[in-house]
């Protein structure tokens, strides 16, 4: 038997008592390695102490308490589910609000800017229309359209001098 088998038997002894065969092998190895005898005795003593550790204190009605706690927990869970049934969207909102907030803000700003621009644009158009109407209404009497009958011919003349010559 070598050192590794000794280690293996040591690990086995942590979990359970060695079988007579394992015990014989171990004692044989210890006889050949007397320096390990004290270490093994200490090891065994500790194993015994750990094996006989007292159980932790436990109330005699532990199981019934568990069942009572479980019933209370299930009842609470059920009533919570009933109460929260109609508020699922609120939970959803609560969950996604931090992510939705910047997007919503950007959207609100964009809509406001667009509405403002459109209002401004409409206002300007109305103002221009009013100006044109005012101009038309307040303008002095317009000449009759006949005055423009030679407009095209006059327009085609290259210079003012030609126009003057034509008129003369």
């Amino acid at each position, binding site marked *: 038997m070598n050192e590794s088998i000794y280690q293996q038997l040591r690990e086995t002894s942590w979990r359970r008592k060695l079988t007579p065969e394992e015990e014989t092998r171990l004692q044989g190895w210890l006889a050949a390695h007397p320096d390990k005898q004290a270490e093994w005795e200490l*090891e065994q003593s*500790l194993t015994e102490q750990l*094996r006989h550790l*007292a*159980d*932790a204190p436990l*109330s005699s*009605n532990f199981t019934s308490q568990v069942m009572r706690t479980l019933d*209370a*927990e299930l009842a609470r869970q059920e009533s919570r589910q009933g109460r929260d049934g109609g508020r699922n969207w609120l939970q959803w909102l609560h969950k996604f609000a931090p992510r939705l907030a910047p997007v919503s803000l950007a959207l609100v700003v964009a809509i406001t800017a667009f509405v403002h621009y459109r209002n401004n644009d409409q206002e300007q158009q109305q103002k221009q229309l009013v100006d044109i109407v005012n101009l038309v209404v307040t303008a002095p009497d317009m000449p009759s359209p006949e005055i423009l009958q030679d407009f095209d011919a006059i327009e085609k003349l290259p210079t003012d001098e030609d126009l003057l010559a034509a008129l003369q």
Partner: protein
Amino acid sequence: MLRVKQGDRVAFESLVEKYKQPVMNLVFRTLHDPTEAEDIAQHVFVQVYKSAHRYEVSAKFSTWIFTIARNLTLNEIRRRTRHPADSLDATSPEDDQPIIQVEDRKHFSAPDNVLHGELEAKVEEAIAGLPEKQRTALLMCREDELSYEDMAKVLGCSLSATKSLIHRARETLKQVLKPYLRTGVWREAENP
């Protein structure tokens, strides 16, 4: 556990009966407060029932329940660190629960029992002084149902790391308890 999964309360009660002491042993030796340990142990079983639908048949039940027990205990330790003045009792809504009835299992009347009790106290003290992982590994080592592989799963580490944790825990205990350990006899008692 399959019956519990289907909502069988009788099967659940028998599971509680079977595992209450091993779970309590682990939780109590980590928290060192019997009342809080019992509260946590109760929550372990409530959690088992509530999470039964998530239990995979391929998993070993003892591994699963010890993992839940360890996680809830660690949560409680974290909670204590954040709110050192709070007690679990103060936050518990179960005010109408009956007073916990603890069985008195220890009777230290005879002198040898007194010595044994004192030695046991020394061992408990030494175990309490171990780091959490080493202590949990050492305590699970006492559970026949758990193999080294199961312990490794509960602790979330490799098989060799688990064995190493147990080895280190035992080495520490041997060092601390060396004056008291000698094939079960307490040296101090022999030579006061």
